[in-house]
């Protein structure tokens, strides 16, 4: 067995030329391409974030001009949402793991997968070009009539970039859906799918159904700006609120596109970290689909103060709290999974614990925002910023880092420093809370979002936030350093360093080009940790 393992060439060594990477159809190599490009866009978005937080150190915003500040937060939002958060986990870990986890050799459409990456890169570099060409100052939401009649000239370019990246999302989503339906190995029934696969599957459904609406909306914006069609212009009989309905019809589900894969990652990390089957597998799997479905019926909660009908607001408020049911199931089931487990305090599990804490807080403050009378006060303030950063950054980014620490040995075949990994998890958690908790207070005190200058009484809390952001930024760099170090100096990881279940851990690390020598056969339920438990039970 060990002899054949060394003879098999890993996906990393199956060709060394640049061409062998840029023309690859191997899902694992495409995942690496995504990891590198997503890291690049994360830095672009992070630089904009750093400028924002530095500028807000003083009430007068001495670092940037008004327009410079507006462009900084716009590019921060556009890049982070469409070029980091949405593709982060699905396109990297989804690509790498989905075929491995269901016992397939590749995705259903490998060439389409490569095309998705090229579309993503074209759109991303287009965005960087827009940035260099002077940026855009509409905010990532492109609200009309500001974007169609008043903003500077790069709106159409920026909208085009987002329009293009939408195709990448749709193609990836289709690819994942077909793969899950068609390429599961014998015995890998729907009831045995890893929870990460369930979450990627649910996410893909949302991607395919919601993204076209965004694309059409962006086309409408561009046409209105170019030709004055009047779809959103009241002077011509249009309606600015129509734009908001269209935009949030995509962008609320998009929140679940960002966070559902993270929830899937955490289920994997919790099960492996506790060496226990996930508590209530069926409920946790079903809750992913329920969140995806409910996500389509709550967009109006972004519009409670927009002037939409009060009855519509009341209905959207009610539907929004319904999302608490499937979200609560996940959190409480993870907690129950830990009961009588064999809990490891290794970096992946620390990131998972940090995720749960931040996600719970972000989710519950989201319910606060779903309450009409509370939202009227805190809408469009820093309270909202704090809330969605708890979900998006505290949640999705923590899960992304958790996933990176968990599957890194599988991806590169080497371990990293566990001690440094633990420190990074702790510093990221602390830095994150110091950055964003003060923003809840700022929001309730009445500091609106997208403010370049602010009343002096808000300065102390803003300074706390900026100091936290500095710590957070430094903490995010730590994994960057020890991961690169591990590429060269890390100890060989072995096939299954965490003693985890799941087909991906039955392959060598890093996996060979074609994943499995023979088609795997699954005859056990997922997270079947009972066997391994015996020896460790003191």
């Amino acid at each position, binding site marked *: 067995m060990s002899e054949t393992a060394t003879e098999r060439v890993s996906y990393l060594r199956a060709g060394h030329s640049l061409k062998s990477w840029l023309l690859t159809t191997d899902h694992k190599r495409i995942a690496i391409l995504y990891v590198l490009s997503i890291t690049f866009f994360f830095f672009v978005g992070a630089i904009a974030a750093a400028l924002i937080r530095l500028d807000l150190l003083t009430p007068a*915003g001495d670092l940037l001009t*008004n*327009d410079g500040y*507006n462009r900084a937060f716009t590019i921060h939002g556009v890049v982070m949402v469409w070029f980091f958060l949405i593709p982060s986990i699905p396109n990297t870990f989804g690509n790498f793991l989905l075929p491995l986890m269901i016992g397939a050799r590749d995705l259903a459409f490998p060439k389409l997968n490569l095309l998705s990456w090229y579309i993503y890169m074209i759109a991303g570099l287009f965005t960087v070009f827009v940035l260099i060409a002077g940026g855009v100052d509409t905010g990532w939401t492109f*609200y009309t*009539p*500001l974007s169609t*009649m008043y903003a500077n000239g790069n709106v159409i370019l920026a909208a085009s970039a987002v329009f293009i990246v939408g195709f990448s999302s749709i193609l990836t989503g289709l690819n994942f859906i077909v793969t899950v339906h068609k390429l599961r190995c014998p015995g890998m029934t729907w009831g045995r799918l890893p929870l990460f696969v369930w979450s990627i599957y649910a996410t893909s459904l949302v991607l395919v159904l919601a993204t076209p609406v965004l694309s059409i909306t962006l086309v409408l914006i561009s046409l209105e700006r170019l030709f004055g069609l009047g779809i959103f212009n*009241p*002077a011509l009989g249009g309606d*600015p609120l129509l734009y908001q309905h269209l935009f949030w019809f995509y962008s609320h589900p998009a929140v679940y596109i960002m966070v559902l894969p993270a929830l899937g990652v955490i289920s994997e990390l919790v099960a492996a970290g506790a060496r*226990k089957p996930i*508590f*209530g*597998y069926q409920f946790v799997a079903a809750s992913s689909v329920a969140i995806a479905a409910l996500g389509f019926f709550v967009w109006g909660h972004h519009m409670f*103060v*927009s*002037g939409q009908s009060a009855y519509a607001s009341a209905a959207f*408020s009610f539907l929004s*709290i*319904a999302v*608490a*049911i499937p979200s*609560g*199931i996940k959190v*409480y089931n993870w*907690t*129950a999974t*830990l*009961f*009588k*487990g*064999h*809990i490891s*305090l290794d970096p992946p599990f620390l990131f998972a614990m940090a995720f*749960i*804490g931040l996600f*719970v*807080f972000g989710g519950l*403050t989201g*319910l606060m925002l779903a*309450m009409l*009378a*509370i939202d*009227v*006060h805190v809408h*469009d303030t820093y309270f909202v910023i704090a809330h969605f950063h708890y979900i998006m950054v505290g949640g999705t980014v923590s899960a992304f880092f958790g996933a990176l620490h968990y599957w890194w040995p599988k991806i590169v075949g080497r371990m990293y420093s566990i001690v440094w990994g633990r420190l990074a998890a702790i510093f990221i958690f602390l830095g994150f809370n110091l950055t964003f908790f003060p923003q809840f207070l700022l929001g*309730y*005190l*009445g500091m*609106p*979002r*997208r*403010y370049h200058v*602010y009343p002096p*009484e808000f300065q102390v809390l803003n300074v706390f936030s900026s100091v936290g952001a500095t710590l957070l930024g430094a903490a995010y760099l730590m994994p960057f350093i020890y991961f690169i170090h591990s590429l060269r100096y890390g100890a060989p990881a072995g096939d299954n360093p965490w003693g985890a279940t799941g087909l991906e851990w039955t392959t060598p690390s890093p996996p060979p080009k074609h994943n499995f020598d023979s088609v795997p056969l699954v005859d056990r339920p997922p997270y079947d940790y009972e066997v391994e*438990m015996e020896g*460790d*039970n*003191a």
Partner: protein
Amino acid sequence: MTFIPLWPQSVSDYSHQVDLLVIAFTVLIVALSAPVFILIVVFAVKYRRGRPADRKHSPNRNIPLEISWSVIPFVALVGFYVWSTELFATLRHAPADALQIDVVAKQWMWKFQHPQGQAEINELHVPAGEPVKLTMASQDVIHSLFIPALRIKQDVVPGRYTTSWFTADKPGTYRIACSQYCGSNHSEMTGSFVVMKPADYAKWLSQSSNDQTLAAEGAALFRSRGCSGCHDPASTVHAPSLVGLYGNPVPLQSGEVVIADDEYIRDSILLPQSQIAAGYQPIMPTFQNVLSEEDVLKIVAYIKSLQPGEATQ
């Protein structure tokens, strides 16, 4: 406390109620999240790998338990939903006798118009203890009038009127902000909200006295812009009479019946073809690019003042 304020000033009965709701919801957040936080830490310590502990017969599922921990929080949330929605509903029902102040938002200033004709920029003076209703119009992009001390906020949307109302109780000066991103100087589109004792407010009104009330200015516009040519009772053109129109049902050509509120009158001036009154020809021209939002608000004020049997102001 001036070093780090932790709670905003609260100056109306409504704002106190919002605070109460927020405090109660914070308690709910603690109640729902504390078990998770505490148990994760307890389990992580107690069942740390390699540490001796009783791990036998740990259950993998418990459906009644799972249903209960999804349904019980939901029921609690429905309670909060009812509370919060009722509170929100009060914002939609201004008292009939509320003082009517018009708001015009434009990049990047607030203009407030009092019924007696006084207009002010980036300052809003109101009498304490008296309900005030705001009718808001935007000249360009979407803005949002945000008065944190009142816990109210309402987007000001081009093409339609939005409203809000409040009764401020505590005299003092508070902040006004624009909370909907509106371009370059968004963060400087701020102002002062000045609550005065009723006597002081009366004095302020007389000091910043204006020759004409809003309705009177509207009447002047009504004549100078040619509206009276058709809508005066003496006119030969077949146009609806506007006396007693406000607040009453209007049958439309389409068969619908609408109430003639501010929004209807505004639309009839700017988009006259959209809602034709039954029995009339669609001959009225649009005043879309002729009248500013402020002018329209003045004409609306004039038409509101046209009550049967009362002398026009």
